[in-house]
């Protein structure tokens, strides 16, 4: 009950916050094809968030619906990993973050297709197909950027260094210990295809899973929640 609810909530928060960051690319992407792809990935994640929130609100007995959970919790109540809430940075950072988050989420969802909770298992089964595409998209761009021009390579290296300290946080909260290895293998392989090496860095202590967020979450949520909160009692 409560545990399932908390787990769905955390997975839903990752998806919502990621979708919000992807939506910020709207009318800012490097090309029309990327406009469409990033929006599409954002839409998939938004869909996952909505189903997970609905399940969370049922499972924890609170009866909160998707909008209660998205719009009426404060930053410290969000349980997403910090990697999801960091600002978009350049396209390389967005791609490397997407690669890491989708590789991790795909590994998790693949296991969740066997969840004893039938709803969560169904959400996972649908999500697996989406996430495989997200990971593929990010991996292809990572290789293109890493093996493109001098500048794109430099930006890829920096992006990998910026993302790497936040990975431990992804694995730490999972009970399944093979997930970290699986994700790191993907990252090493993609970096290798681009002629780069995935960096070894010290993980950053702390975790968004305990409500320990960066300074970036509060402004993100202020924007996300502002309209909904400005109209008490409104229906949309």
């Amino acid at each position: 009950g409560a545990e399932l609810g908390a787990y769905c909530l955390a997975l839903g928060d990752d998806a919502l916050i990621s979708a919000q960051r992807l939506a910020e690319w709207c009318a800012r992407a490097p090309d029309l094809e990327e406009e469409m792809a990033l929006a599409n990935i954002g839409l998939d994640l938004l869909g996952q968030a909505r189903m997970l929130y609905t399940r969370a609100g049922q499972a924890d007995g609170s009866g909160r619906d998707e909008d209660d959970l998205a719009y009426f919790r404060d930053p410290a109540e969000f349980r997403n990993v910090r990697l999801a809430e960091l600002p978009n940075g350049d396209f390389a950072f967005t791609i490397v973050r997407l690669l890491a988050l989708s590789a991790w989420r795909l590994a998790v969802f693949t296991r969740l297709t066997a969840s004893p909770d039938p709803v969560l298992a169904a959400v996972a089964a649908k999500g697996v197909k989406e996430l495989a595409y997200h990971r593929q998209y990010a991996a292809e761009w990572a290789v293109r950027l890493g093996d493109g021009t001098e500048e794109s390579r430099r930006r890829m290296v920096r992006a990998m260094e910026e993302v790497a300290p936040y990975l431990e946080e992804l694995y730490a909260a999972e009970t399944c210990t093979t997930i970290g290895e699986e994700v790191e293998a993907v990252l090493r392989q993609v970096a290798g295809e681009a002629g780069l090496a995935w960096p070894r860095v010290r993980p950053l202590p702390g975790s968004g899973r305990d409500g320990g967020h960066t300074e970036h979450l509060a402004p993100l949520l202020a924007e996300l929640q502002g309209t909904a909160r400005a109209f008490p009692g409104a229906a949309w």
Partner: protein
Amino acid sequence: MTTQATTGDAEARLQEHFDATIGRDQRIEPRDWMPDGYRRTLIRQIAQHAHSEIIGMQPEGQWITRAPSLRRKAILLAKVQDEAGHGLYLYSAAETLGADRAELTEMLIDGRQKYSSIFNYPTLTFADVGVIGWLVDGAAICNQVPLCRSSYGPYARAMIRICKEESFHQRQGYELLLTMMRGTDAQREMVQDAVNRWWWPSLMMFGPPDDASPNSARSMAWKIKRHSNDELRQRFVDMTVPQAEKLGVTLPDPELRWNDERGHYDFGAPDWDELRRVISGDGPCNAERIARRRAAHEEGAWVREAAAAYAAKRAAGRRAAA
């Protein structure tokens, strides 16, 4: 002289064949001969339409991150994504005429080609999202449905797909407004305010009055255009007034009333000076819309260059392996 005469004869035969195809309401396809003026006019029109889709992502797009419910957020994100898709089809259609997408983008951000003036008005509240769906997409559909029968095949086929999606967007916009009108007083006020701001600009989307629209005749002869600006504008008003009544909002035109004799609604004249100003670049958001598009293009240059460099390396690798 013989060669020239022969060329002249050949061209006359091609022109005849072209005219006959148009006359039979059949489609011109990319491989077909076409007069230069037809090609140029079409490129300009399709490019302008593509640019409008791309610039049109901005006014609504800025509300995706601020949408007040997850369902509306998803609907809006999907809609704006569709607009990017429309831009893509249309640029492809223009490319079948020999245009180059990168060049068309340059012409947009240099101000050498235009886009629909409607996108130079600001979106100030979430109600604007609904009203843009209802009025702006509604007006766009009135303009575009006849284009599904455009004489140029690729354009006509793109328009069929686009119109289908636009009607879907229009229904979603109207449905959002219906929901808001059933909500709180603050929401109803917000809807009315948005209608007040968007009504006149929507009427201007059909272009200047017929007597001030010099290029229309040729486009109609070529069946690139099928109805006059004023005809389409009237059709839009007639369609919209009952929808406004059902919604419970007031359209901000004191002259608006049913004319039994004409079998149409009478309505006031938009401020054509305003339209001229906005078209000539002095609308409230022209500079910002272009600046934003330019910034995205420039900031994305290194990404496009990287993709091109990577593709070139791979191609070279394949050639070496072959």
